[in-house]
């Protein structure tokens, strides 16, 4: 049955769906973010939750103060090297299925502080990021756009078959190694299973 036929039936009041679609529809419309902010970007995240932008329209208004109850981590702000192990620990404590949004230049790459001695060059060095929202800071609309993109991503997830969603695959690592505080830097400075720095192809 094609989408057009289904649309046609829907207009006549007959709803045809699959369990997978229903399940993903429910999941994508009740994403509960973890309530924490790391720097200035968090202010925009807070603004997105207030009446004017109203993230509740997308079912993500319940900011949970505990990682056990959250399924979205919005890394909103500068991740310092001192904070990075704690962010990874929070991520490990979140139950699957879980998603991560890197909000702002700092969370993506270190942003304006990239060459600094104390700032992590992007949270994707340690945890897998689903959506990157560029900006310094991204406006609340950008966060809402990122959230709807994440919803699209969730809706496209398959529950069975060869392209099963990440959280349903048995080999999926639910936990990621927490870096140690070393004498000069975090040890290791990134998770090689997850991240490799962009390389510069040089031809003679």
């Amino acid at each position, binding site marked *: 049955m094609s989408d057009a036929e289904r649309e046609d039936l829907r207009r006549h009041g007959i709803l045809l769906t699959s369990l997978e679609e229903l399940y993903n529809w429910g999941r994508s419309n009740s994403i509960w973010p973890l309530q924490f902010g790391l720097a200035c970007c968090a202010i925009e995240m807070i603004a997105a939750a207030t009446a004017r932008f109203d993230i509740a329209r997308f079912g993500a208004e319940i900011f949970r103060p505990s990682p056990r109850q959250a399924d979205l981590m919005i890394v909103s702000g500068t991740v310092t*090297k001192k904070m990075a192990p704690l962010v990874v620990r929070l991520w490990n404590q979140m139950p699957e299925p879980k998603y991560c949004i890197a909000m702002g230049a700092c969370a993506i790459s270190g942003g304006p502080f990239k060459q600094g001695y104390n700032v992590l060059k992007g949270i994707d060095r340690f945890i897998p990021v689903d959506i990157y929202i560029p900006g310094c800071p991204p406006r609340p609309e950008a966060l809402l756009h990122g959230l709807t993109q994440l919803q699209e991503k969730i809706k496209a997830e398959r529950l069975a078959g060869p392209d099963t969603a990440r959280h349903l695959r048995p080999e999926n690592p639910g936990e990621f190694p927490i870096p140690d505080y070393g*004498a000069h*830097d975090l040890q290791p400075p990134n998770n090689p299973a997850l991240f490799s720095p962009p*390389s510069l192809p040089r031809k003679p």
Partner: protein
Amino acid sequence: MESLEQLRDRLLTRFPAAKVELVLNPGASPEHSLLLEAASAREIALFLRDDPFVKLDYCSNVTGLDWPDKEIIETKKVSVPDPAGGPAKVVEEKTKRLQPGYLEAVYHLYSMALKSTAPVILRLRTVNRSDQVTLPSLTPVWRSADFQEREIYDLYGIIFEGHPDLRRLLMWDGFKDHPMRKDYVAPDDFEWEPTPHGVVHERAKAHYPLPGDRLGQTPAGQQPGTVSPANPTTQPEAKP
């Protein structure tokens, strides 16, 4: 309010054993300061806080400075008498002298009680930058110096004696370096990205050397293009 010279003279008469120097910083908005000795700094600070004429009861800012060793070349004009009996020649003589480096803590003080508008600035200097880096803490005098002295300890490595809780503030406890010192070398965690900065391109050459490039710093005995052990993710693209 009295001028800094008057204040210095008053301090010198009050504390005859102490050494108080005036450090001039002339310019459009001059900010002169008083250089104190470590031995008498605490007493003088207490005096400045409680003295009814200055009453510096508010320490708004404490900051650190790093002065590395500096080579100073002085030129002096010396007149050399001519052995033949002619007029003496004037010769420029250059002397080099190494000014040893030191670390410095700078305190900006105001008086809330007297509503002062310009700060009185105190400076304290350590003996050197390596092993004699202790200064007396002024936190017992002005409590607002607490976190700022901790930050200076963290970033510059000045040890404040008498501080109630001297721990690192921004970096973690096991961290060994002092990142705001001039000779700090950040861990080599280079990430190439397209950028107009020449420095980045220079570093990129060292990290992603041209295959067969002798100038690019390929470790000896290692073929360019192989995975280097120091940076296992660096994989310069092989020539097709």
